């Protein structure tokens, strides 16, 4: 892989880092708690780097994606449970992303919501059907770079950078009782929204699609590390904007139209338009990724032919399943369900499923008999185990916190 491809890979990962889950949780956390949750973003980012790097390395060395590995390590029955739960979460996430696309199209062009839903879904279907795998990632990732306008808006508003940096130290605001539980809910929500597993299913399957070789493991580490780290800077910018724009006005930015307004305050109409285009492609990319991730998981588990490079005839089930995800997501949104509610469910339930797919990847990537010289280093192993503990805590705490706090409302 040459330098241009590497830079393109990092930029694509950066543009695709933020999705509707992060937007919802991060902007609200900024408005409610100032910079007190910045450290959670950093913690989640290291976690997704570790998970992606391990899964990508397995893809390069063994040509195995996540649901090739899960049945080997969990046995087929438990792996089937993992597939079942992962599919449920993927479908909810896909619906929420499609809802986000429709809302953004409505804000950009004033379309009626139902028409925006149909148009948005058809657009994603067409792009995924027509574009080769590499260009699906790149089209959405590079156009998603318009999200950088959120960082520009943050710089224009001139936050107290020292206070932002202090937010990197793990902390909790002085709250008691239910308010403390709401903060805990946001901690779990932000951590889980950064560590959404569909990104890893897609990333590792993409490595197999792109025919990565063992010598590509360094490039895998750079893309996973640098792309996610830069993406998390963008997420921190959204949190800071949440604090500066919405905090003083006591607004809880729980809708995409409110979140996009944050760009209009310092940058006016142009900032708002660029921000909306960035949101559209970032969320569109997430919809494409999660629908493909659902199809990858299904085909890998049942040993069916898969891959975007394969024709409809060569991989009929795989192609049918990703298209079905998008159509089912659109139909779910047409019932009128609020996409923000759905996002919260998808993020919290994703956390509950995460240990079932993280653990097999950790085991496989640590196994010297399987990975040889490419097995986990001591540092990666140590981080891997630490994050297994953190993920398990988030999995156990997420659902109870969601019900105790009325999904973070108090």
């Amino acid at each position: 892989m040459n330098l241009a491809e590497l830079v393109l890979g990092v930029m694509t990962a950066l543009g695709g880092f933020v999705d509707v889950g992060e937007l919802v949780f991060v902007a609200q956390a900024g408005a409610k708690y100032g910079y007190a949750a910045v450290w959670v973003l950093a913690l989640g980012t290291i976690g997704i780097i570790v998970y992606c790097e391990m899964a990508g390395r397995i893809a390069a060395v063994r040509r195995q994606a996540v649901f090739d590995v899960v049945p080997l390590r969990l046995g087929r029955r438990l792996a089937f449970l993992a597939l079942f739960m992962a599919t449920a979460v993927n479908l909810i996430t896909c619906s929420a992303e499609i809802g986000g696309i429709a809302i953004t199209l409505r804000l950009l062009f004033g379309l009626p919501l139902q028409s925006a839903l149909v148009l948005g879904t058809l657009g994603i279907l067409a792009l995924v059907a027509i574009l080769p795998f590499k260009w699906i990632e790149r089209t959405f990732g590079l156009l998603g770079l318009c999200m950088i306008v959120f960082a520009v808006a943050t710089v224009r508003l001139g936050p107290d950078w020292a206070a932002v940096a202090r937010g990197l130290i793990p902390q909790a605001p002085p709250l008691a009782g239910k308010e403390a539980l709401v903060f805990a809910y946001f901690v779990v929500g932000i951590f889980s929204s950064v560590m959404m597993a569909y990104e890893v299913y897609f990333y590792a399957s993409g490595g197999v699609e792109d025919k990565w070789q063992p010598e590509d493991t360094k490039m895998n580490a750079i893309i996973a590390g640098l792309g996610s780290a830069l993406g998390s800077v963008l997420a921190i910018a959204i949190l800071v904007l949440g604090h500066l724009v919405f905090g003083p006005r006591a607004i809880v930015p729980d809708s995409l139209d409110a979140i996009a307004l944050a760009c209009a305050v310092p940058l006016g109409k142009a900032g708002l338009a660029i921000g909306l285009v960035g949101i559209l492609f970032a969320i569109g990319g997430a919809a494409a990724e999660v629908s493909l991730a659902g199809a990858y998981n299904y085909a890998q588990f049942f040993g069916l032919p898969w891959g975007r490079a394969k024709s409809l005839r060569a991989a009929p089930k795989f192609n049918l399943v990703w298209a079905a995800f998008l159509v089912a997501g659109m139909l779910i949104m047409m019932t009128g369900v609020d996409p923000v509610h759905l996002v919260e469910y998808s993020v919290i339930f994703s956390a509950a499923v995460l240990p079932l797919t993280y653990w097999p990847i950790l085991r496989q990537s640590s196994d010297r008999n399987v990975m040889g010289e490419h097995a986990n280093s001591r540092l990666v192993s140590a981080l891997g185990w630490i994050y297994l503990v953190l993920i398990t805590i988030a999995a156990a705490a997420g659902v109870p916190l969601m019900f105790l706090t009325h999904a973070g409302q108090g």
Partner: protein
Amino acid sequence: MRFNDEPKADALFAAFALAMFLVVAGYRYGWQSFHHTIPPDKLAIDVENSASTAATLGLVLDLASADRVPEGYVRTTFENANEELREEWAHARERDASGGKGPVLAAYRGTLAELDTLTGGIAAPAFERSRADSSRPRLRAIEGTLRALAARP
């Protein structure tokens, strides 16, 4: 069951997709409303959410007056808010039917109805009104009332 059995897997997946759809649709038409009305402390949350909506509308109008958001955006934001408030309004009525919280509920209902009317009236000629600056003081008053209500025990 055998997990490498393709027809069974297909049937299972189709059933699963249907079940998921029914669960989400059920959530939309049943559980969501149930979840919304049952907790006794939910009124404060509803009131706080409505105050946040009023404050968001105020911000949109401020930006529109400074020519920092386009007309279409103002209209869409108000239409979205109006839809949200209609839902809140329906919940307030449900609560009213089940006993509610007396004077707090009545005040909330009145304020919400006014906000609902305000956004409904604004949705069409949003931009002109925001320029005329006639609706912001009312929005601020409504937001203040809602926040005062949310703070009541």
